[in-house]
Each structure stands twice: as structure tokens, then as C-alpha cells.
């Protein structure tokens, strides 16, 4: 089993969600995040005082999937989140040792 984590531009969340549903993903966790990459931050001005804001708002998506779904899921996220401009974000995949559904106690792929 794998845990796929993606950090994307917040306004692309709906596109990514639809793309993931399109490849059969039935659940995901989404949280608000802040961060920067090569894009860096932006400037804000309050009463003439300029501030460099290093961390820009991002959306973080987490999906737990079976091993054979990895390629389709990654492709769905990349397609859904891409705008071709700097700051589109990243996707990474890690091993998930165990998954348990809390309600039933099911384990492993049955819990996905």
C-alpha cells in the first residue's frame, strides 16, 4: 500500500478531486498548508510598509491507495493540478505499512 501526498495550488483542488474520482479513488484527506519552493513568496503592503511573505497558501492532499493504483493516481493529480506556471506544487509517494478502517477494524487493502 502507498500513501500519496500532493501539495498543490488551492484553486486546482476541484480539478484534482475530479481527476482522482475519475480513476476510482473513493476518499482523500485535504488540509490547508503554507509553503514555498522555487516560486518563493509574495509582497504585501500595509500603510506603506512592505513585507516579504515567504510562505504562500497551498493545499495538501493525502490519498491511501493500493500498489497497482500508483501510476494512475499520480497521473491524475499531475494532470489536474498543472497550470504550467511556477508554483504548481509537488507529488510524492511513500510506503504505507498498515491501514485500518476504524469502524470495522478491517486491515490492509480491505480498509482502503
Amino acid at each position, binding site marked *: 500500500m502507498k500513501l500519496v501526498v500532493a501539495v498543490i495550488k488551492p484553486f486546482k483542488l476541484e480539478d484534482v478531486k475530479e481527476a482522482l474520482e475519475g480513476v476510482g479513488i473513493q476518499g482523500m484527506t485535504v488540509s490547508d498548508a503554507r509553503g514555498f519552493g522555487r516560486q518563493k513568496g509574495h509582497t504585501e503592503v500595509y500603510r*506603506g510598509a512592505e513585507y516579504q511573505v515567504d510562505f504562500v497558501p497551498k493545499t495538501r492532499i493525502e490519498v491511501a491507495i493500493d500498489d497497482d493504483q500508483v501510476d494512475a493516481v499520480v497521473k491524475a493529480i499531475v494532470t489536474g493540478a498543472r497550470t504550467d506556471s511556477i508554483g504548481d506544487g509537488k507529488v510524492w509517494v511513500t510506503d504505507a505499512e498498515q491501514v485500518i478502517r476504524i469502524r470495522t477494524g478491517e486491515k490492509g487493502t480491505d480498509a482502503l
Partner: protein
Amino acid sequence: MLDTGDTAWVLASSALVLFMTPGLALFYGGMVRAKNVLGTLMHSVFAMGLVSVLWVLVGYTLAFGPDKGGLIGGFDFLGFSGVNADPHPAGLGATIPHSTFATFQMMFAIITPALITGAFAERMKFSGYIAFMSAWLLLVYAPVAHWVWHPDGWLFKLGALDFAGGTVVHINAGIAALAAVLVIGKRKGFGKEAFVPHNLTMTILGAGILWFGWFGFNAGSALGANGLAGSAFLATNLGAAAGACGWALMEARKGGKATTLGVASGAIAGLVAITPPAGFVGPMGAVAIGLIAGAVCSWAVGLKFKLGYDDSLDVVGVHLVGGIVGSLLVGVFADVAYNEFGADGLIAGGGFELLGKQTIGVLATLAFSFIATMIIVKVVDATIGLRVSEEEEISGLDLTQHSEVGYSLSESSGSFTNRPEPAAAVTSSPSHVRVAQGGEA
């Protein structure tokens, strides 16, 4: 001889001026970091409680009691004794009840010290705030109000013009703010970290409420429902409008974007500057004064970074500088055509005489308020203490001074520590449950 129309307008204006203080609370509250929002709101809102009581007890009589040497009022109106339905004996508001005049003035006394609190926002100890506000009201505000507004006050007799409080309210509060921040010191991280306003929507709404309430502040200062109130009302709106334009133009000139905080600040700067001349100038004078104030104050708010004092929410840049601009411009734009009890300024052919008197009024207020405030803050600092500990400053005023948080975004926030025993409440079955069952049967 009481006039019902005059009385009705001053009563309504009193309510308008009171409403400025919660407006100020929102204006200031939105500009601080989220951890200090309640502490900042409290600095304005609690003034409504504290100052109202002090004003009735002793503040009013020090400001508007029978004159003692042109400097202060005597104790005749202690506890509002003798403040009743007859007009003020010295002719202040000759057509309205004395109690109405005293109430109208109470609202000014509330907002003036509340203005100062923006300067020491985000680091003031609540007990120090109470001591400072009380002492400042009685030892600084009351005497200056007497000098300027009591017919026997020395600045009133000199002929310095202050329609609604440029010297008494704005210069007085602005220079006091400077004295206070010089003693209390900078916020931790000032000049290095970005202190970003946590909710500018609050600030914009607060500015709107201030603008609305300012009609009572300025037009109400005519102390009657008459032509003077009408022209002061118009000048007030134009001062605010031109102030917003002036600030936005300066932002555009510097190649930046027009900001909402800039426009809100410009409107307040325009309102501050139009306060002393509101009843002495015409509409075009009001537009000019507002534009100048908006532009000058947009520059003045940058001074704190250059000079290195931490005036958190720019009380100096907006109220002190705006108040000086407005008070001096009375000497330029005043015209007896708009107020027969006023005087002609430079443009109306009155020469430099009025400008000279205005300058004396400004300098006297600056000197007295700075020195007296400095003494008050030093004494409070040495006794009760002005500033929270470094740890409390980092945690925020809301939690450390008031045991509350402004924004609780989590459903699980803890459990009761002082919950009453539930036994008695549970054994008697609630009556509304029986009624519901009866209804079903």
C-alpha cells in the same frame, strides 16, 4: 431658553459619538495580530465603562466647572451635582439642558484616551492601562478641554479656534501616544518581523463606523440643529472623502497599488484634520484640508520606522500629524462667512493673526500633554507596571490579560475546571420535556 430641536440633535449626536468607540475598537482590533484582538478591543470598549464613571464623579467638573484661573474647572459639578435641565451657567449650549451638554462631552472624554491605546497596542498590561487611562483623563484631558472649550479657558479667550477637538482630542491624544511609546518601548521583533494586520475587514468596518459617528462629533459640536451644524456636517463628509482620495493618490504616485488600509486610514486622517475647522470653513476648504491631511499622514506613518519608536497603530502619524495639519489650516481656510463667531484666515484676508493663535494653541497642547503624559506613564511604570512580561507578550494579551481567545476554531477546547455539582439539576425532570410528551399523546 431650551430648544427642543437643538436638544434632540445633541442627544442624537451623543449617541453617534459613543458609537465611534466600538468603531475604533474594530478599526484597531483588525490591525493587530490575532492573539491580541480582544486585548485591543478591550482598550477601547472598557473606556466606555471606566471613563463614563470617572467623568460623572470628577472629570466633568474639572473640565467644565466654574473657571479657576483659566486653567481648570472648580468642584461645583462633582458627581454631576447641579447638572440638570437648565442650561450650563456659563452659556455652553444655551438652548440645551446642562445634563445633555455634560453627556455629549462624556462621549468625547471616552474616545480621546481610547485613541491613545492604538500606540501601545500588543504589549500593555491591563492594570497599567486602567491606571494610565484614569490618570490621563483627569490630569491631561480635563484641563486641556477647559482651556479650549470653557468660555473662561485661556486658549478660548486668546481666540484660538477649535470647533470639535483638534487640539483637545487629536493633538492631545497623539502627543500622549508618542510619550507613552517612548516609555513602554518597542514590541518584541519591531522592525524585524512583519506585524501583519490579522483582519482588515474589521478595520474597514470600523473606519466606516468612525466616519458615521463623526457627524455627531463635528456637527453635534454646533450644540444646536441649525445652519452651523449643517455646514459642519457637510465639511465632515468632504474632509473624510478627500482624505481617502489624498492617501490613495500618494500610494499611486509611489507606483504602488491603492490599498484598503490606505483608503481607510486616509478617511480617518481627513476626519481628524477637519475636526478643528469643521464649523469655520466652507466646502472647498474642507476638500483642500482633507486632501492635504491624507497626503501628509500617508507620509507621516513611515516616520516610526525612520525614527525608531514603535507606535503600533499609527496614532502619531494619523492623530497627532492630522490634528496639527487641521488646527493650523484653520488659520488658512477659516472664513466668517461660514461662522460669524469664527475669524478670517489667510485666504479670506484675515492675515497671519489667526494662524499665530492656532500655532500657540497647538504648541501649548503639545508641550503640556507631552510632559504631563510622560510623568503619568513613568509613575505607572514604576508602580503598577506598564508592560506585560516577554512571555506574556509572546503568548498574546487575549489569553494572558483576559483568559480568553478571540477565535476558537477547534471543537474540542478543554473541559470545565469549576463546573457546579449537577445533582440538583438532574433529579427534577425538566418541565418542557413533559409538555412535549403531553403534546404527542
